[in-house]
């Protein structure tokens, strides 16, 4: 599933696949404040996203996937979300960047779309004007150029009448249309990285496909890297090149999609795949996973998944769980992954 280089722009502004990763997280831990306490919600997560790559973080609720997405742009103030470890964007550390430099990146080189298209746009401002704001912040285009750019962007996300849509207010658009407008806004300044936080979860499956196709096409067209946050394994299987599986704030398994989903090694990934409904023969029962997802307040040392794991034993509770390399690109955090 590697991108062929001819789909990328010829001017070479985007680094090639072998150059420094667009985004790398190293030993990332996140904490939220709850009164006087600090609760760890993500521990020691490391991953890299190469230029032009579609990387997916999959997890159930409480896995910390959304918080990781928000921490990259530092969308939450430090008083609410504390970041430990390192996040690097094109070789620059994001965690130590002063706020004004961070602001220059937000909506510029890194942009983001959210889960709820219905509430992610300001209801009182025309859609075009909201896109224009991003252009004002990050480009030198004059008014006419901005208007042209908005039209191009809206055409890119498959609006037949871009000028008309630009003048509309969010409430006049359907959910799918709003999400497309959000994508247009996110792509306004030719970002290198698009963070998409469950962008299709609130949409119908036919609309989901439309939106996913648009993201995929524009990614190829502009050589964009995508960090895709999702709970949906089949969606990830269909679009992602590399996948990280999160559980309880821990990255359980990460690697190329064909490995992680095609022949997963971690018992959690395997169990999760076994949970996906779909056709079954009469009398067959898919096993699923017993028990429930633990809350960050109940996390104990050892493997987070051990209570629900069929392969777990005493060692899983006590020791520090090592990350095993299964191939140069594929690793699992488990004492006994299938090899």
């Amino acid at each position: 599933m590697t991108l062929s280089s001819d789909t990328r722009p010829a001017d070479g502004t985007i680094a090639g696949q072998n150059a420094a990763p667009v985004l790398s997280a190293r030993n990332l831990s996140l904490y939220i404040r709850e009164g006087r306490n600090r609760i760890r919600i993500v521990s020691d997560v490391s991953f890299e996203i190469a230029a032009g790559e579609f990387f997916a973080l999959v997890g159930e609720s409480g896995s910390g996937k959304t918080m990781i997405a928000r921490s990259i742009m530092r969308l939450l103030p430090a008083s609410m979300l504390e970041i430990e470890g390192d996040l690097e964007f094109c070789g620059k550390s994001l965690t130590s960047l002063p706020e004004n430099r961070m602001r220059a990146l937000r909506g510029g080189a890194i942009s983001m779309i959210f889960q709820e298209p219905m509430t992610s746009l300001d209801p009182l401002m025309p859609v075009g004007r909201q896109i224009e704001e991003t252009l004002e912040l990050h480009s030198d285009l004059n008014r006419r150029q901005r208007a042209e750019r908005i039209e191009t962007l809206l055409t890119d996300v498959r609006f037949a009448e871009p000028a008309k849509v630009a003048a509309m207010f969010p409430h006049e658009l359907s959910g799918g249309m709003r999400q497309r407008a959000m994508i247009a806004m996110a792509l306004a300044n030719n970002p290198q990285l698009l963070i998409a936080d469950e962008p299709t979860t609130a949409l119908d499956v036919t609309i989901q496909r439309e939106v996913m196709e648009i993201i995929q096409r524009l990614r190829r067209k502009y050589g964009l890297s995508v960090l895709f946050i999702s709970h949906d394994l089949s969606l990830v299987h269909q679009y992602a090149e590399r996948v990280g599986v999160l559980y309880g704030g821990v990255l359980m398994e990460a690697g190329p999609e064909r490995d992680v989903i095609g022949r997963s090694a971690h018992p959690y990934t395997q169990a999760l795949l076994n949970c996906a409904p779909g056709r079954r023969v009469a009398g067959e029962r898919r096993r699923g996973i017993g028990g429930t997802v633990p809350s960050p307040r109940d996390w104990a040392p050892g493997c987070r998944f051990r209570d629900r794991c069929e392969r777990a034993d005493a060692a899983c509770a006590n020791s520090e769980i090592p990350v095993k390399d299964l191939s140069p690109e594929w690793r699992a955090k488990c004492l006994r992954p299938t090899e």
Partner: protein
Amino acid sequence: MIQTSQTATMSARDVCKTFHRSNGWFAKPSETRALQGVSFDVEPKEIFGIVGESGCGKSTLARVLVGLENQDSGSLSLGGRKLFGPGMADVPPVKRGIQMVFQDPYASLNPRMQVGEAIAEGLAISGMARSEREDRVAETLSLVGLSPDAAQKHPFQFSGGQRQRICIARALVMEPEFLVADEAVSALDISVQMQILNMLLDLRDRIGLSIIFITHDISVVEYLCDTVMVMYGGKAVERGKTADVLDNPQDSYTQTLISSVPRL
């Protein structure tokens, strides 16, 4: 022992429902035609899936079946009994023998009520004695895989999946002939979703429960349902054995829908 009738066929004919929304005293009200003549039959012990996108009328249909919403026209019968139809007064919800499980496990239980109280609510309304209620609650709890001491706890002590089990218990305790589940697993994590789906399959096998399962998720229909009805714009556009419909969809919307579903 909780029992259900294993012989009743549900048939709905030409069910219509239009919503009118008032736009103030002097403006024209707007109309949404949620159901435009929907008909179907569900056999006893069958799991009947209704699938469609948001706004297709599937939830309205569920609410009409249990009596939470009044249909404009059409008829519904269960076994030999007519539940609603022309020239008769609608049978009130509790007398229909149809119970419902809702989508949101968090809004489905009154936070102030103990779980036992919540499950026994329908029995209490019908005037059953307390001691008998408690026995029935304990029996039903074990049927849905929860321990009897859950009855003394409050909803906040349970996870989403467990709450959905409680809601199913609350429906089953009424010994319904049919269970209508409206997106009953959509709000759950995938790992928990499978537990509930398997439980529904087991319930069908063990107590002969007939289920109408409403969902937007084709893969859930594939796993759970014997038959499926696809709805679009308030109409049933296709109906048939699940495998037949999915392998060989006839309607153009069904085709689009099935081809849009990402697959593992």
